């Protein structure tokens, strides 16, 4: 406890520098944003099932987003919802909230440190994120009073904000002030994310306790470390990408724009290229996929091992696979751009590097399966979600082999096949991983237990509904249906697809409702849940050696000393089926 001052309400709960409190701040903000993002998807799913009709759900929208006569959702605002849903889920929930919660919470606790390297920078990281959140939410309601006949609304050019659509306010209403706010918000978001990332890296490298060599790091910490490195290397590119767009929008430069007529007026921009934007964007955008996925996969590694009562299979291969995936993720961005007219040779190179990622991914799946083999599985809600992640990673990862192949991408690029693929492999895997993390470390976060049976219900409801939403999308894509269509009623070739759309929407609404079980369980347990014991899951890692009631500084006395790796579960020669990392090796005992 040395060096920590007495705290009042503000320093403890608001401007806290304690990594555990900051983690909870990220988690709660992320949960709020996840609800907003999910409601948006529920609303546009209703439009897709009943195109052009009114719905009571639309009353949740800001005024002016629906047609005054028919009550139907406005097509521009449909795109606004799609854009904000993507932005919120990709950046706010699965990047900031996932890493922000678990990197903050677990790194110091699992490496045996009192806190992050810099508590102050850590606090700043959250408050930048918070400010970015406020601006983004404000942008949803943005409307310029001077444009009386249209409601501008937030950014509407897709979460990838490709110019010229995102650069010209006459191209779509959301590209006015809403887009400026989006860019401002993401800029502040990136600052926060970089401050967090640097802190995570420094902490892991410098503050490990005695005996905690890199070879003994739990896989969670490995995953979070590599994620932070990816973020630090790629987010600055998105920052510059966004700044140049800001220049084009506000100061008349032509980085991305050339030869444009909009509303019958030929614009002065000349010599720029929208393709340059795509290169910069996806140089972040692809590592971003792994910034989302790796923390989830590493949480899952930990949860599966603990609840299988078995060491994670192939620890070194798991770490190696993380490195290979991280490295490859920087040289595959072009697979998002096969159809931009890029040189076919360049397309070949990106196909090659992209399909290579399947190898480390396959290794990870096989290792998870080998961990489950001859295990003694204890089905906590966290374990259910961890197995769900592996299932989603298999299902969604395989379709990547289709999309990564440039020749096949010609016909499925930008169709619902892509929507199905990334929602399963990235969305579901990551959100399941996040749920697994929350259920698993809740007792450490709040000193109380979440209700097991509600957790079971939550998992099965989510598992069934999520596949009901995203699996049928592959068929829509193979039928040739482009994504981001307000309705598919304009073309006779899509006439047979309305049943599939209704099924998807049914599962989407049911799946959204099921999440209420989680919220209920979470908030009930925070205040009323039964008290947790010190090590409820009989886990080996250091966080379970801290007192149940969390304290600033984590351990009351000296820092723990580590003598073994994190995965000695069911080790022959030991009576219990787990051995804490702080337990010295017995005489003649080999480490693995």
């Amino acid at each position, binding site marked *: 406890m040395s060096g920590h001052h007495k705290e009042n309400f503000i320093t403890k709960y608001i401007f806290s520098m304690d990594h555990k409190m900051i983690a909870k701040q990220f988690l709660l903000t992320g949960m709020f944003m996840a609800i907003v993002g999910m409601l948006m998807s529920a609303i546009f799913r209703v439009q897709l099932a009943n195109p052009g009709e009114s719905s009571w759900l639309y009353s949740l929208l800001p005024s002016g987003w629906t047609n005054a006569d028919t009550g139907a959702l406005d097509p521009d605002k449909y795109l606004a919802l799609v854009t904000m849903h993507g932005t919120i889920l990709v950046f706010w929930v699965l990047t900031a909230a996932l890493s922000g919660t678990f990197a903050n919470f677990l790194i110091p606790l699992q490496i045996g440190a009192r806190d992050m390297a810099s508590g102050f920078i850590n606090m700043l990281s959250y408050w930048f994120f918070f400010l970015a959140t406020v601006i983004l939410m404000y942008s949803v309601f943005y409307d310029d009073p001077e444009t009386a006949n249209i409601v501008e609304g937030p950014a509407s050019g897709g979460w990838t904000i490709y110019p010229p659509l995102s650069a010209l306010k006459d191209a779509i209403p959301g590209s006015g002030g809403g887009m400026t706010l989006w860019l401002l918000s993401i800029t502040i978001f990136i600052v926060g994310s970089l401050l967090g990332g640097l802190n995570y890296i420094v902490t892991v490298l410098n503050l490990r306790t005695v005996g905690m060599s890199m070879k003994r790091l739990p896989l969670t910490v490995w995953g979070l470390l590599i994620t932070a490195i990816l973020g630090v290397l790629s987010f600055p590119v998105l920052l510059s990408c966004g700044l140049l767009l800001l220049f084009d929008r506000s100061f008349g430069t032509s980085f991305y724009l050339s030869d444009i007529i909009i509303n019958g007026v030929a614009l002065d921009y000349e010599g720029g290229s929208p393709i340059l934007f795509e290169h910069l964007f996806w140089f972040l955008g692809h590592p971003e996929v792994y910034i989302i996925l790796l923390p989830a996969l590493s949480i899952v590694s930990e949860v599966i091992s603990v609840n299988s009562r078995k060491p994670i299979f192939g620890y070194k291969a798991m770490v190696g696979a993380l490195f290979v995936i991280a490295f490859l993720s920087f040289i595959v961005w072009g697979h998002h751009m096969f159809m931009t007219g890029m040189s076919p040779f360049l397309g070949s190179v990106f196909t090659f590097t992209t399909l290579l990622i399947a190898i480390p991914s396959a290794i990870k799946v096989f290792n998870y399966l080998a961990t489950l083999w001859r*295990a003694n599985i204890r089905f906590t809600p966290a374990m259910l979600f961890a197995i769900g992640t592996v299932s989603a990673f298999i299902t969604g990862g395989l379709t990547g082999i289709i999309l990564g192949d440039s020749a*096949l991408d010609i016909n499925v690029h930008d169709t619902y096949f892509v929507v199905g693929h990334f929602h399963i492999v990235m969305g579901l895997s990551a959100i399941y991983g996040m749920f697994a993390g929350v259920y698993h470390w809740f007792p450490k976060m709040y000193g109380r*237990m979440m209700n097991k049976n509600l957790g079971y219900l939550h998992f099965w409801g989510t598992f069934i509904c999520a596949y009901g939403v995203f699996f049928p999308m592959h068929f829509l894509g193979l039928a040739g249906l482009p994504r981001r269509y307000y309705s598919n009623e304009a*073309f006779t070739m899509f006439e047979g697809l309305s049943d599939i759309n209704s099924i998807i929407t049914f599962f989407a609404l049911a799946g959204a409702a099921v999440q209420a079980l989680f919220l*209920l369980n979470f908030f009930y347990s925070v205040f009323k849940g039964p008290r947790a014991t010190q090590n409820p899951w009989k886990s080996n890692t250091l966080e379970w050696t801290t007192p149940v009631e969390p304290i600033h500084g984590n351990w009351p006395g000296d820092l723990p000393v580590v003598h073994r790796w994190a995965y000695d579960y069911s080790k022959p020669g030991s009576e219990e089926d787990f051995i804490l990392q702080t337990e010295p090796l017995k005489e003649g005992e080999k480490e693995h």
Partner: protein
Amino acid sequence: MSVFLILVVAFLLIVTLVQLLRVSELLSKIKNQDVNEVSDNDNNTQGWLFLVIGFGFIAFVIWQMVNWSHLLLPPAASEHGVQIDGLMNISMTLILVVFFVLSPMLFIFAYKYRGKKSRKAYFFSHNNKLEVIWTVAPTIVLTALIIYGLKTWDRAMNVEVTKNTKIIEVYAKQFGWTARYSGEDNVLGDANFRLVRGPNVLGVDMLDPHAADDKITREVHLVVNKPVMLKFRSQDVIHSAYLPHFRVQMNCVPGIITQFGFTPNKTTKEMKEQEGDEFDYILLCNKICGGGHWNMGIKFIVETQEEYDAWYAKQETLGKQLLTLK
């Protein structure tokens, strides 16, 4: 009113659930067990659920494949498209086989190794031989797929333009498409966005000698088995020209001319016989471009040389169009 009722119902549901939670916790206190302790019974139930619901999911996948296969795109109607379909069939078969092996394996493991308090797990931390096998096996399969894929890609993209190749421009704007045929000389007249004015909707430079014989059309007619090279331009934002039946797609980018060459090999008539009378080839927009993105198509018609010649003769040249107006 309905919103209010829904809110009331939701509120009552939450209250009920909270009460149920309390009751279950109190009951377990009375019975002196921990409600959140995972018992052998729980492991049993959850293991079974993985088996039942997991296989339910796999059955759902099969059900979709059986019931929705007729909704998928018909076989390719272009030469390179046939090769793409071949690669697609092999890749799809491969991933389906892997899916139908790994997913059941996961669910069966979850069921089979469901825990019992009396049992201990098998300590098995690594095995080099196994790990080498499952690194090398996917590597070999992927190498084969990559080579096959790159060959198909190369053939689809690097199309030689010969004398026989018809050059046609497809021009995108919010929210519609316009086509321009290159005329007798098979060369498109130069165009510049600053020249877009009145009837000159594509900004064609009429001083260019190649321009006068160009023809602007609202439909695209192609001759079956004759190669065509589509050249794409955009007036405002990025669009994407997507011809799903031909396995053709290319972005239309303002400031840049992109292209895609292919040879259609089935006439619209043949396709109507195969797919039903409502069938038509269509070019769709496949890149988010604004509020009308979803409603932006242009009809393609593939026909015999005679039918094409008859149609083409009826279209007016640009020279005539713009001159008559002057």
